């Protein structure tokens, strides 16, 4: 309980871990280091309220005096550059060395960078940090036309928020479906329609070939078309920040490999959040969500405070796509079968995903009640079949007395 714990990365996972360690009675030193210069802040608003200018300021993760009150040493503007696991020290960018009893990687992920010719122009922007968002908002103020590269969550959120401000938005997506790595085919198709209906020019199977940076930006697509823009925003996926862990000899593969207790192959070193590729039900998952970051942090805090805990929380996720609220509970796979709940034509519906005849995930559009119920049902681990879903709403099922599985 008196060990010194060093956390690299003060994002959603790192800050939650520091807080939960104190809540669980950890009495030793806690050091949180982050290369960013600001107070730790929330990322999700950056592609939503922040773009639509509804929210003028970044939302801090915790109050400024939180860190001193909780005796958490917060070092901002400090990049960890080397880890010596034998000596149990971390070197920072300013040359300082810090020693630890336990080390936690909460280094998150960074944007995959658009690398086509012309992408170095300052009007070509990726959205990950507060700095990116501030830069983007400044440039957006005078903009009339934007091109978005990539129809993942962030690209579509941004395009919808820009469109809502009256800015023309063209989205180029090289895959045949939007959100193709994250949601069911039906939901993907529904969002394609919805965004087009709201006036977004959505081009599928069309990537960015090159950008001709003149007075305006001219984006050449792989389909041979040219799209004029005041700025280009890209959201083409992220890369987990594993280099430091890898250089210290820890096993990494699409993230830092950790077991179900979030421990690396070194028993004094752990990883949580976007950078962690964790064992779960015999497979491996690396998730990019606030819930995953925060809940893994809570779970690890218990382990570090002497109550060994396997991480097993039900994943959930949200996205705000213009007028539409998307919420996802559970983890689906492309091979799962799907069942429609409600009427997509009404703009409020859910899609239940089933595996081996059993409910594994629910995607809800503008139907928070379904999402709320799905989270309860999945957390209880009840066996919900297609027949049960046909006979009752998720809420009715969630409110029914659970039957032992």
């Amino acid at each position, binding site marked *: 309980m008196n060990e010194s714990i060093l956390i690299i990365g003060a994002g959603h996972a790192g800050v939650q871990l520091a807080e939960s360690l104190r809540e669980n009675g950890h009495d030793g030193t806690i050091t949180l280091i982050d290369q960013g210069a600001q107070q730790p802040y929330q990322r999700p608003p950056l592609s939503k309220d922040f773009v639509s200018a509804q929210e003028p300021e970044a939302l801090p993760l*915790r109050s400024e005096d939180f860190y001193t009150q909780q005796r958490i040493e917060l070092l901002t503007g400090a990049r960890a550059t080397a880890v010596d696991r034998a000596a149990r020290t971390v070197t920072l960018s300013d040359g300082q060395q810090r020693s630890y009893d336990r080390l936690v990687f909460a280094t998150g992920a960074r944007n995959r960078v658009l690398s086509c010719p012309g992408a170095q122009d300052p009007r070509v922007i990726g959205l990950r940090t507060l700095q990116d968002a501030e830069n983007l908002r400044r440039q957006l103020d005078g903009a009339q036309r934007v091109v978005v590269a990539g129809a993942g969550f962030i690209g579509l959120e941004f395009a919808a928020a820009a469109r809502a401000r009256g800015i023309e938005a063209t989205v180029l997506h090289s895959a045949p479906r939007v959100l193709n790595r994250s949601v069911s085919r039906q939901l993907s198709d529904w969002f394609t329609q919805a965004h087009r209906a709201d006036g977004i020019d959505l081009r599928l199977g069309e990537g960015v070939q090159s950008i001709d940076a003149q007075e305006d930006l001219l984006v050449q697509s792989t389909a041979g078309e040219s799209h004029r823009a005041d700025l280009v925003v890209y959201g083409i996926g992220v890369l987990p920040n594993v280099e430091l862990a890898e250089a210290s000899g820890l096993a990494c593969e699409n993230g830092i490999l950790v077991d179900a207790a979030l421990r690396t192959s070194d028993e004094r070193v752990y990883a949580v959040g976007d950078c962690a590729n964790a064992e779960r039900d015999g497979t491996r998952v690396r998730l990019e969500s606030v819930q995953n970051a925060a809940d893994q942090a809570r779970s690890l805090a218990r382990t570090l405070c002497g109550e060994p805990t396997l991480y097993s929380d039900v994943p959930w996720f*949200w996205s705000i796509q213009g007028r539409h609220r998307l919420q996802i509970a559970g983890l689906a796979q492309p091979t799962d079968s799907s069942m429609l709940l409600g009427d997509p034509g009404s703009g409020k519906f859910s899609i239940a995903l089933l595996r081996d005849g059993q409910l594994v995930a629910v995607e809800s559009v503008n139907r928070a009640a379904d999402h709320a119920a799905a989270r309860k049902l999945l957390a209880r681990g009840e066996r919900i079949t297609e027949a049960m879903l046909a006979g009752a709403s998720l809420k009715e099922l969630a409110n029914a007395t659970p039957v032992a599985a």
Partner: protein
Amino acid sequence: MPTITFEQPNGTATDVEVAEGGNIMRAAVANNIAGIVGECGGQAMCATCHVYVNPEDAAGLPEPSEDEDEMLDCTTAERTEHSRLGCQVSLGGALQSIRVAVPSDQV
């Protein structure tokens, strides 16, 4: 300035002043009020900013939106008729003070 009183499960109460239009969740996070998490950043998506509004103050509040109402089914602590999501309740105008109880569990 509008004032929010946060009452903890152990009975201690803290007064926090907020700017006109400020919401309960933001005020709590900015002032380090224990037990209010605000994991989704105020988008009525996480239900970790659950509070119980003092019944006498509830009369002055606008009804919860459909989204808020539905997400209130996600709270960890029991939902009651006085449950609200702190991020969806803003102060200002005629509503210059409110007293809320923080639930014992938020996640």
